[in-house]
């Protein structure tokens, strides 16, 4: 366990911005990136010349900080970082920005994720013909051809070891869709019932179409500033009180890397390993968290994270959800915007932006009353990242 308590509340998220989320943006990824960054910077009330850092993550599907700095016309680009990765990299971009601001390498850092993930290169399938190289030489010849397939053992083994049911997974999908009906950005806003879920077709048993994130085009951006600077900006600051990243032994990347199969457990994610550092930095316990925006590329991921981040015992994530505790009006609302399952698969920074909206109190009809502390996560299987934010 490491100790980052010195960084608690030293920085804040001061601006958030989105583009439209769609199936076909009709514009370049650079256009999406520039628009989201400009919106976030304006939202903060910062002048363009005050932005001196840019951090982004991509899966060889996006644009570089330099290109965005050019569009924004920044007089000078200081700290910048382009991190290769999907899920685990989302909250990690914010963590990098926090470290840059806290140690004086930058004053105001804009973090973004931009992709044409639906009309362009899709990662959950499509027309691509991935080659059986590296670790995937042991997967692809057998028809294990997508990162989605890598989530299947999580569900199956959780069912085998803890008796988790499809209705429990379905309850999460239904409640997240309910939240999305109140989110104008969300791609999928038509309410669904548990019957709709159970009638949804199998993509790969044990998961259905409604268990999977919806791939989209779009971009989201956030601005990280010092707590001092945040005091005199447009919105009340949302402080970064805790942050952590990493995982346990044999940390594979969950895409098509099978080092994971050396592991003894398929039913726990990285959260178990990083949550001690996360809660210690923030000086809180899971009981203090009001809302959660969990990375949810597949319905099973929030269920396991409820356990791994200490909200219930191992194996009890299914009943916890089915009892309604994670609904918008429950004791611990999860994915208040609909998550990837309904808002869209922007790879995680959209979850952080939603948490900021909620903590500011401007989430409209889906606002959780008196939300003070939010947890957000980014999942890459055995590694991941997480933030604790407070108003």
């Amino acid at each position, binding site marked *: 366990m490491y100790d980052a308590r010195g960084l608690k509340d030293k920085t804040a998220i001061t601006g958030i911005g989105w583009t439209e989320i769609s199936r076909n943006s009709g514009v370049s990824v650079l256009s999406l990136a520039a628009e989201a960054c400009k919106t976030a910077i304006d939202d903060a009330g910062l002048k363009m010349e005050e932005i001196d850092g840019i951090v982004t993550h991509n899966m060889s599907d996006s644009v570089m900080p330099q290109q965005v700095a050019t569009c924004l016309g920044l007089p000078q680009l200081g700290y910048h970082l382009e991190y290769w990765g999907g899920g685990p990299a989302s909250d990690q971009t914010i963590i990098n920005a926090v470290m840059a601001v806290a140690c004086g390498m930058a004053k105001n850092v804009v973090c973004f994720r931009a992709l044409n993930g639906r009309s362009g290169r899709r990662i959950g399938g499509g027309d691509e013909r991935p080659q059986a190289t590296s670790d995937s030489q042991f997967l692809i010849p057998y028809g294990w051809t997508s990162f989605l397939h890598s989530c299947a053992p999580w569900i199956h083994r959780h069912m085998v070891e803890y008796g988790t049911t499809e209705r429990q997974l379905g309850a999460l999908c239904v409640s997240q869709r309910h939240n999305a009906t109140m989110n104008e950005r969300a791609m999928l806003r038509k309410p669904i019932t548990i019957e709709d879920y159970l009638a949804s077709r199998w993509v790969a048993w044990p998961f259905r179409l409604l268990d999977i994130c919806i791939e989209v085009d779009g971009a989201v951006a956030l601005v990280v500033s010092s707590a001092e600077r945040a005091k005199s900006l447009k919105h009340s600051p949302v402080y970064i009180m805790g942050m952590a990243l990493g995982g346990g032994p044999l940390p594979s990347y969950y895409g098509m890397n099978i080092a994971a199969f*050396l592991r*003894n457990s398929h039913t726990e994610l990285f959260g178990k390993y990083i949550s001690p550092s996360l809660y210690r930095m923030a000086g809180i316990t899971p009981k203090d968290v009001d809302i959660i925006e969990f990375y949810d590329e597949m319905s099973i991921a929030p269920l396991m994270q409820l356990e791994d981040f200490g909200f219930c015992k191992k194996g009890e994530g299914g009943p916890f959800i089915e009892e309604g505790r994670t609904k918008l009006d429950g004791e611990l609302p999860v994915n208040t915007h609909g998550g990837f399952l309904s808002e869209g698969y922007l790879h995680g920074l959209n979850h952080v932006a939603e948490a900021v909206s909620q903590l500011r109190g401007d989430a409209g009809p889906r606002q959780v009353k008196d939300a003070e502390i939010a947890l957000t996560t980014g999942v890459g299987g055995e590694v991941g990242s997480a933030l604790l934010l407070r108003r």
Partner: protein
Amino acid sequence: MAEYKKPLPSPDEDTREYWEGCKRHELLMQRCNDCKTFRFPPLPMCPKCNSMKWGWSKVTGRGKIYSWFVVHQPTHPDFVDDVPYTVVIVELDEQKGIRLPSNMVDCGPEDLKVGMPVEVVFDDVTEEFALPKFKVVA
């Protein structure tokens, strides 16, 4: 033999001997020369003792079903004609945690059970490659 059109492994420095063993219908597992721990997938260093000396041991090819999934909607164009098809994960008897993704040759998902004993068979898909697959132990 009809032309095989599905993706074939691309052996590299760490995995070549595994696939050469398969071609001879021998299931070889990489094993640390120093601490004797098996590992899969092949790695250039033993995660247990950090030795970079390894050999290949022929294993029995017997194991138990650990998990499986059934693909109904293909995500790779070469598997379009195969759906629904089943991918299994087999844990080898030699060492807990050594798990191979594969396919069954003689049973569908309705017959699979966690812990069910299986053993390796080799599918000579081309002249260059045999894929280790599994059958139910009677």
